[in-house]
């Protein structure tokens, strides 16, 4: 009987020793883990583009048969393009589909008040810096035009002198 108890105690000690050995081995494994790393690329494709703001109307105030030319007001707009992107402007008479690149100046005779004018772009090309850049469409109306107006004053937006060709197009090429 004494021998059986001794044998069980021996077996217990052996099992405990094995468990301790396995635990120590496990701890040793954690402290000795390896790291690995790798690099990766971030590939970006940027499609350059330009944004054209709304364009303020170009306005003329003209007196029939006036002696000097009339300079237009308004015509302000801004263009914002991808940084370093070169771009250019062009004008096109009418409001039809844009046909790039357009022209630096156009001549139009308003069919409402029957007055001829010329529109020009002081700046026709630029390299973008990423910010919105302001520009102006200039316009001149030659002197000594009589125009068409049965009243003391007419405009090309209302009444009998309403124009059907007062809309024109600005093209931004990039």
């Amino acid at each position, binding site marked *: 009987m004494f021998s059986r108890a001794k044998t069980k105690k021996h077996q217990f000690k052996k099992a405990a020793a094995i468990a301790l050995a396995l635990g120590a081995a496990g701890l040793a494994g954690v402290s000795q883990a390896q790291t690995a790393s790798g690099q990766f690329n971030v590939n970006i494709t940027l499609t350059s583009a330009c944004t054209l703001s709304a364009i303020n109307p170009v*306005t003329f105030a003209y007196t029939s048969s006036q002696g000097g030319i009339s300079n237009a007001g308004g015509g302000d707009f801004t263009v914002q393009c991808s940084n370093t992107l070169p771009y250019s402007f062009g004008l096109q008479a009418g409001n039809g589909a844009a046909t790039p690149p357009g022209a630096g100046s156009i001549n139009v005779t308003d069919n409402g008040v029957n007055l001829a004018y010329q529109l020009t772009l002081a700046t026709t090309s630029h390299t973008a810096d990423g910010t919105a850049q302001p520009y102006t469409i200039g316009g001149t109306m030659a002197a000594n035009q009589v125009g068409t107006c049965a009243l003391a*004053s007419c*405009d*090309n937006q209302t009444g009998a002198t309403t*124009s059907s060709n007062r809309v024109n197009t*600005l*093209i931004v*090429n990039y």
Partner: protein
Amino acid sequence: MPRSTRLVLALAALLIAAEGAAGAGSGTFTVDITLANPGVPAAPATGICTSQSLSDQTGALVQVVCSTGQFVSIGPRPGAPFAPTHGGAFTYYFSPSSGFRLAGLGGLYPGAGTITEYRVYTLDEYDGRVDILVNF
């Protein structure tokens, strides 16, 4: 120039052209023109007016309502006193085709002028009945 050099230059030119045609955007704008015609005087607005029938009441306030445009205008002359009672001098305008006439003050005709008091009657009721008496 060697043929190979010409070929390289041609390819470079094509690339530049391709860059220039990368994209395009467009916007429309209007050209607004105002044409003044100095030889033609400005025409006053015309329209049809009605008034309340209170002329038989002492101190009545008569309101003239114009449905379209302006038929009668009364305002102070520049530099002249304007008073809501007797003694003022005022400008007036009656449309020539209005169907109204002035009475009691000979020599006045439709059009622009100066007046201190007038009566208005319709041509359809030519019996002398006063439709409106305006005084200041």
